[in-house]
């Protein structure tokens, strides 16, 4: 019995060390926050349009089909990184993308889209960032997957890429499509 007590520190240490090893092995970034809004309905929103040629975004527009909502800004570097991929999604018609321009100047955002291309079906302007806060956004870019009922099903923090889309988002889209068809 006594010996067991002397083993205590070792046992405790091994458990602790295992906990240290796990995040490293899993490759987790401690700064990425999981969304608190998964499975919740998207908040109310009514965002004015960025361009004259495309409508803004209101809650109704986001209900009825599976879609991606992408928060972006012209001053955001990583947004530029993901833009090429967003253009490909836009062209491929896998799933529609809606854009929310976060805390940006209208002129700068317009020019940005002009220079890099516009993958969005609709673009809304979130001038003061309140809408973003309602969605639980804490930085740009962030991309949300919305289902037909208007619920948030997945959120990706940081620039989107082909591999992330394939590994994380595509499966969810497939499941969602099956649900409504089955």
């Amino acid at each position: 019995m006594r010996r067991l007590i002397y083993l205590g520190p070792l046992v405790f240490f091994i458990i602790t060390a295992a906990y240290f090893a796990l995040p490293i092995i899993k490759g987790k970034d401690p700064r990425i926050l999981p969304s608190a809004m998964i499975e919740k309905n998207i908040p109310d929103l009514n965002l004015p349009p960025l361009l004259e040629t495309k409508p803004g975004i209101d809650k109704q527009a986001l209900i009825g089909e599976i879609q991606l909502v992408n928060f972006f800004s012209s001053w955001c570097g990583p947004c530029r990184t993901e833009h090429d991929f967003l253009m490909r999604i836009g062209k491929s018609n896998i799933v529609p993308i809606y854009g929310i321009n976060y805390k940006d100047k209208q002129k700068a955002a317009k020019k940005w889209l002009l220079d890099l291309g516009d993958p969005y079906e609709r673009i809304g302007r979130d001038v003061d960032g309140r809408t973003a806060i309602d969605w639980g956004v804490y930085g740009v870019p962030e991309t949300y997957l919305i289902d037909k009922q208007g619920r948030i099903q997945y959120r990706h923090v940081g620039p989107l890429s082909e591999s992330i889309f394939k590994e994380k988002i595509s499966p969810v889209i497939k499941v969602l499509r099956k649900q409504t068809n089955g």
Partner: protein
Amino acid sequence: MIAELGHYALVLALLIALVQTTVPLYGAAKNDFSLMGVAQPAATAQFIAIAIAFGALTHAYVTSDFSVINVAENSHSLKPLLYKISGVWGNHEGSMILWVLILALFGFAVAQFGIHLPPTLKARVLSVQASIGVAFLGFILLTSNPFLRLDPPPVDGRDLNPLLQDPGLAFHPPMLYLGYVGFSMAFSFAVAALIEGRVDPAWARWVRPWTLAAWIALTAGITLGSWWAYYELGWGGWWYWDPVENASFMPWLSGTALLHSAVVVEKRDALKSWTILLAILTFALSLMGTFLVRSGVLTSVHAFAVDPERGLYILAILVLFVGGALIMFALRAPSMKLGGLFQPISREGGLVMNNLLLSVATATVFIGTLYPLFLDATTGQKVSVGPPFFNATFVPVMIPLVLLMAIGPMLAWKRGDLSAAMSRLWFAVALSFGIGIFVFWLHSNEPLTPVIGFALAGWLAGGTLKEFADRIGLFRDQLSKSLSKARRLPRSAYGMTLAHLGLSIFICGAVADSAWRTEVVLNAKERDKTSIAGFEAQLENVERLEGPNYHLERATVVIRKNGKYVTSVFPERRFYPVQQMPTTEAAIYTTLLADVYVSLGEGSKAQGWTLRLWYNPLIPWIWAGCLIMVLGGLVSLSDRRLRIGTPLKRAHKKVQANGLPENA
């Protein structure tokens, strides 16, 4: 050329460390004096080799040799010389060189100054110390080599983060490393004792100077870091419970428990297992701190470099050494000879309680710091554990500890008289009460927390002073008799008194600052005035100037009291073009009883500037209290007994190092 020399020196150090690990250990097992004797010159050679490497790296920085990748990434030709030097350890690779340098330094010191250590123990201690060196030198050479070259070399470097270009921060890492790398020696002693299968009072006496030296350095290092954060970061806070701060605080708490626990082993040959365990634990916490800062596992303002691969390597070292030591502990500790008996109410009992409370404090900080990690790894949920948690849980542990600190020293060894001790503490009660009432009178309509805090500080100061007075018979015997007793008191007694008083002063400072700090924020144009804590502050003007490697805006703020001029302070906002980074340099006017802290924000002549002023009562006592603790440690370290390793000669019989009278 010099960089290559540094590189070779590191490889050489690794080879020497390998020899130092294996040969003396084998020699100790075989009782072969010549093999054991390898340890001393090996430790010296290892230190010299690493010193050469460190010198080579420093040379590269000072000469701005940008063909060395490490220099190119962290330095710049325009940087002032002091920061070129401190840039050596302002990055991951360079700081690891500093790490092994200090590791080797302690080995060298024990080799040179540990004259009275029995050869087998000395050989084993140096062997364990060298094994740690092998692990980290391997780590450096395999993953973090600062001597790699860049071809073609860039024209200039990327510069050091401006925040690190500061005298306070230049010295904070070396001091800190002296501290928690220094605890490696206590670890080596503990493991050596486990290998020998024996812990006795002599062992405790031999391990004490190294543990004390590390503790002193760690206290100084943490204080320096805290003070730096206060004056540099611009909003007058001095402790954030940031994970990396906690990573240095945990070994401090555990190291303090170790120091006190070793006293019991030394005086009464008891608490051996606990002391060994604390020695292992303290260094384990140091290693854990090294791991946390460099692995990216936790978010922190301090995080050095985020490299999971390096993190795994350090984790492997951690598992190997701490796991190995704990296995040895589980095997050997149960069969160690039990030491002196004591009653629960006794000095030993008090120190057991002290151990327990400090361990709980360490555990509290540990749990709070690592819980987000554990929860995330287990359930994927994320939770934040910030200052509110630590303030709610750490402080309640400290309260009984402070109460105990006055009572413990009053109790006799082996069998203490609690009622006698308590009656001697009338002075502590009186002082505590007096200060409490005084504070209450000054701040009568406010919550009672500071009153309690000050009362505790008064209790501690009163108890410490009374204990000292009783020891020298002050007010009881003639003054001359007391003074002669005071002269003959061992320095460790002075050390303890100073250190405990230092803590009391620190408590006053911490309580006052957290309870009564005031802040004023305003938008000020030139010539605008405001007032804070009885002072008037006027923004005279804001100039734009050029510094050595930055542009700046400097404000002149004149401080007056009752219309009379007191002083002018010059808060700045700087911009470092190479790193494209702004910093604030707060201006502090200190009266030694309080600080007026002024910080300049953004602004312009037309719109005015954001000006922030704080009044921080008694904040200088925080640094003063910590410095007095360091002083107490130094005084204790200079105790003659520690240097010689034998107790003071008795009038009648000489006593040997192992505690037995000479002729026995």
